[in-house]
């Protein structure tokens, strides 16, 4: 008898708690939206945006041999689907600048006298320079390249010349994996992690710092005192810039000492870029804190921002493997530009000139977010 009544009470209490939980869940609209939104976003990003076999990689061509053969070779490059010939030039310096700044992934160099040497069966050389700072972005294209070199000219050389040219080995293909010749994945991932860590912690910390004031009721007192929004925002951001630099120095120390990631460029330039990136993330956190009603919501919003940052920035998957819409989306995110900055400076030894194209989008992003944040920051409790 006693047993029966106990189990009956268990059910009613269990129902009571479950019911209460459902009611509270329904009241918290943002949490509910996140529960639906995050799986949708993941499906969308993983399903449509991510592609580990990137094609249409921007390629610059240095062509000093304007012949039928070089045209055929370039056409077959294009037809492979892996290479988009975005720039044909005769200047090696220009091509160098393009690959350093990240505007192109490959530089194909067809030397002067290519067709002459080909016809004389002297195995002319085609030099392909690949930006191998992200090994996964280039490996399939390089594999396709080897196949191409064997077969591309076989049709043109059919007949008399083909015999003379030595059949399949007509061309000497030299592939130069720049910036990361051994294709070490850590070289790419470890500097990128710096950006990922900063994105996660900076946004979350500032998001929480502000909503905490509201949740604990200290906001009312703060607003009743003579302090303006800019003072509050900057004052709240400053300590986290300090924290961010500690994280950066820690990551750099481990990168170089444990993973032997080279620092080719200027450390000082990197630290300046870091400042801008930290500030951009902190401004996002501030903006979230003006929207979120409590710390829980601030956490959720951080995650909602963090997920596409990880997936669309080129950190986990090659940026150029994504469809155009996803690339456009990725271009907005601070992490995308920071990855290019940090990889450029550490692996490529980029200087100020090559970093500028990725600095201004960060700055623009930050200014826009701060402007929205200040507009949303309420001086009153309305």
């Amino acid at each position, binding site marked *: 008898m006693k047993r029966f009544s106990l189990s009956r009470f268990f059910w009613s209490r269990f129902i009571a708690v479950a019911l209460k939980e459902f009611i509270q869940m329904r009241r918290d609209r943002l949490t509910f939206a996140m529960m639906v939104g995050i799986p949708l976003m993941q499906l969308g990003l993983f399903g449509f945006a991510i592609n580990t076999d990137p094609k249409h990689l921007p390629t610059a061509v240095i062509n000093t041999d304007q012949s039928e053969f070089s045209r055929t070779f370039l056409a077959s490059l294009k037809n492979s689907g892996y290479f988009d010939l975005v720039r044909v030039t005769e200047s090696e310096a220009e091509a160098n600048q393009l690959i350093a700044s990240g505007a192109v992934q490959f530089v194909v160099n067809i030397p002067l006298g290519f067709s002459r040497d080909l016809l004389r069966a002297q195995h002319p050389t085609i030099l392909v320079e690949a930006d191998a700072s992200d090994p996964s972005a280039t490996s399939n294209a390089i594999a396709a390249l080897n196949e191409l070199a064997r077969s591309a000219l076989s049709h043109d050389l059919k007949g008399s010349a083909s015999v003379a040219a030595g059949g399949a080995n007509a061309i000497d293909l030299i592939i130069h994996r720049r910036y990361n010749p051994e294709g070490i994945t850590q070289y790419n991932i470890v500097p990128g992690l710096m950006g990922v860590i900063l994105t996660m912690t900076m946004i979350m910390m500032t998001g929480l710092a502000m909503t905490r004031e509201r949740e*604990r009721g*200290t906001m*009312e007192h703060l607003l*009743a*005192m*003579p302090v*303006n929004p800019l003072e509050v925002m900057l004052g709240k951001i400053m300590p986290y810039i300090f924290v961010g630099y500690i994280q950066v120095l820690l990551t750099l120390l481990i990168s170089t000492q444990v993973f032997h990631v080279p620092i080719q460029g200027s450390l000082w330039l990197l630290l300046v870029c870091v400042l801008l990136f930290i500030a951009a993330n902190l401004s996002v956190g501030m903006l979230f804190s003006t929207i979120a009603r409590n710390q829980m919501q601030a956490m959720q919003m951080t995650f909602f921002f963090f997920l596409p940052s990880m997936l669309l920035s080129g950190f986990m998957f090659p940026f150029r493997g994504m469809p155009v819409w996803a690339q456009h989306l990725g271009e907005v995110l601070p992490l995308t530009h920071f990855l290019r900055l940090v990889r450029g400076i550490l692996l490529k030894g980029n200087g100020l000139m090559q970093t500028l194209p990725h600095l201004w989008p960060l700055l623009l992003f930050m200014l826009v977010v701060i402007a929205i944040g200040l507009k949303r920051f309420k001086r*009153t*409790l*309305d």
Partner: protein
Amino acid sequence: MSMDVAIDVHGLTKSFDGKRVVNNLTLQVSRGEIFGFLGPNGSGKTTSIRMLCGLLIPDAGSGRCLDYDVIRETAQIKREIGYMTQRFSLYEDLSVRENLDFVARIYGVPNRAKVVAAALERLGLAHRRDQLAGTLSGGWKQRLALAATTLHNPKLLLLDEPTAGVDPKARRDFWLAIHQLAAEGITVLVSTHYMDEAERCHRLAYLSYGQILTQGTPSEVAAGSGLATWIVTGTALMQLAETLQGLPGVAQVVPFGGALHVSGSDTAQLDAALEPFQSRSDLSWTRAEPSLEDVFIQLVSAAGERAA
């Protein structure tokens, strides 16, 4: 506007989600006065105070607070007032001294270290200076909040239910401190729903459903109510209360310890209704001044009838 008036507002109105929380608030408070803001929960006391210190923008109305416009000059107002929130709003994870130091820096108080040390001393918080504010008991938290509110020598203090949940001894000390501040020329506007605290104010206003029902000195309020009150002592008072409740002219019957307070707004009608009971030997009747509580309850039920 004369220099003797600290608060002078007209027709302040505020709605939230279409519900009018404060309706047409008109209020004058003189400098150096302790002005009590009374009313039941949800009557609009907090909203009114927040409008006076610039935390909320009124939907309608205008006025001046310390000679600054309450709508346009909120930044100046904030510099010269001290606002003590209903809920403890200092940082629980900062120590007592760190909290005061933070507030002093925000207000740009000169000689900060000295001022903070003096405040700690004055409020008897010196030996708790390194204790985290979150670990203080209710009475100490309230003392700390008052110290933080007065650090920058404000001309006007807005105290929102400062004594809620504080023991009687701490409440008494707190009111002593408020009277001392007023004697120094500081204007104090304090909200409360304790009637004994109402009697300690120089003047007071009673709010209900966002509207001021009456204002004046405690004795003016009592006299102006036109309420007549009898105090009955004797046996079987609860049965008597039930009998009296429905009689014409009897507005309210309220037990106070071993006595009943019987009040009505029409003296003649009340006396006539009570006549038959006054000859009973087991009861003794005395005529009394209505207490503020009698007056306010009468006001609220009258306002409720009008609203219904």
